[in-house]
């Protein structure tokens, strides 16, 4: 059986839907956890051993579970949040839990790159910890954060390919069910080409935004 253009378009839409929604929520979680990982570490503006020693291993745990396992392991939780454990919307829950901690590490790295002298200058002028975060740390790390977000987005595109395991659909699912299981090489080829284009596009947009942020 040949695959219709409509099927591909529908799968493309599902992929974009999963990526964008989980990127939004995962992004928020990632930024929040990333900031937490930086400011609560030893010697930083809100040093807090308890918070750091809780958040740090939790992020590590989520980072170490392969996505395909996470997908099925948290089905009860998915049902609790999304009301169902199968379908495209249900797939968003594990995607967020996958990308949030991943992105938080990237955010952490970006923020740690900010020159300590700038934080010292901020402290010297009497900035509150919150002001240091949003007036100094975040703007200074902004261009680097854009690149981190780009990397996270591309990671998400890859992860959505596995969403088919819980009926999430998407391009990856089409490639597996039609291309692999029904021996349609052309389907695999088409979906792969579309995925490559998406990834190239995301990277290009990310690079351009980063350059603009640096004003070079």
């Amino acid at each position, binding site marked *: 059986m040949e695959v219709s253009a409509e099927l591909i378009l529908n799968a493309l839409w599902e992929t974009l839907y999963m990526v964008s929604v989980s990127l939004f929520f995962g992004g928020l979680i990632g930024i929040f956890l990333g900031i937490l990982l930086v400011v609560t570490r030893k010697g930083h503006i809100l040093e807090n051993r308890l918070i750091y020693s809780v958040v740090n291993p939790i992020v590590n745990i989520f980072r170490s579970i392969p996505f395909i396992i996470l997908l099925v392991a948290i089905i009860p939780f998915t049902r609790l949040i999304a009301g169902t454990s199968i379908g495209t919307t249900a797939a968003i829950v594990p995607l967020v839990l996958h990308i949030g901690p991943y992105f938080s590490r990237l955010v952490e790295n970006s923020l740690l790159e900010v020159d300590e*002298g700038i934080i010292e200058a901020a402290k010297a002028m009497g900035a509150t910890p919150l002001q240091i975060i949003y007036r*100094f740390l975040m703007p200074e790390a902004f261009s680097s954060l854009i690149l981190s977000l780009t990397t996270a987005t591309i990671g998400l595109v890859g992860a959505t390919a596995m969403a088919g395991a819980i009926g999430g659909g998407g391009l990856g699912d089409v490639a597996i069910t039609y291309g692999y299981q029904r021996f349609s090489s052309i389907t695999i080829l088409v979906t792969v080409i579309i995925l490559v284009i998406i990834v190239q596009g995301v990277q290009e947009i990310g690079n351009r935004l980063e350059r603009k942020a640096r004003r070079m």
Partner: protein
Amino acid sequence: MIEFHQTSKVFESNGNKVEALKDINLTIKKGDIFGVIGFSGAGKSTLLRTVNLLEYPTSGEVIVEGRNLANLSQHEIREAKKDIGMIFQHFNLVHSKTVFHNVAMPLLLSGYNKKAVENRVYEILRFVGIEEKAENYPEQLSGGQKQRVGIARALVTNPSILLCDEPTSALDPETTKSILNLLKQVNEEYKITILIITHEMEVIKQICNRVAVMEDGQIIESGNVYDIFAHPKTDTTRKFVKSVVRDEVPISVYRLLKENSHFSRIFKIEFFGINSGQPIISKTAKVYPVEINVLFGNITELQGIPFGNLIVELIGDEYEIKRAIEFIMKQNVKVKEVFEDGSERGIDIERFVGNALHG
């Protein structure tokens, strides 16, 4: 005014204790340009940072304008910091913001909006001489311009104290001079007390009126700049003084002297203040039958007072040399004999002349 009372700071890491400050007692008076000099690791940076509590003293207290900031609440400390400006060796500007935005930052933190602070920001940018760079980003500026932005940012809240952490160490000599002049202007026009940390004696020489020398977490010498330069008491201080007031005869000159077979002795004559204006050398040469060969000379000015030294070779009869030196010493200048290996020895005039007369 800043007062340090038995201020100590101990850093602990992995069970190792490092005493960065040991029992510091020091007073910086209102209107001073006070320099703290020392080699790296002497603790001078830590000392500076206890003033605005970037470092909390482990014991003792730091009183700033009559208040011990460490006793205040976090909120009160942040308010108090608006009265203490600070500039840094590496400027520490926010790269993602314009010069205007950088300078406005301390005011924005207090809740003002950009429009409301415009006049004040431009006024201070004009004062430091980079008004036309307001819309530029820090990366488009030279080192000297960046430090001017740093100074503008530190002054925008009208502080009464300015802390300077190695403000010129990343700048070339020419730019250093212009930044130091600007700091002097800040001190004079805004009556701001300046505490400046440096490892360059040139900085102390150019703008400070008082100085403290730090070594190993302690203040080993302090006083007004002229006294410290004229009468350094410790080896460390002498090393710093020598870095700007050179007083050593190059080895090649000694070698040349050795080749001459005539009898001669070498003396170092130090001038302070009004003595510098007297023609001691030519007078000596007229009165005594000795030849005077000037090997090295250096004169500089400290806070408007001339200060320098002259290294001379006296050639002639041993007896006449001694009489000539006695004459020079009577002019109220400090004389030391210098030897080939570079060592110096003070001259005990009684014994020296006594030997000359009887020996």
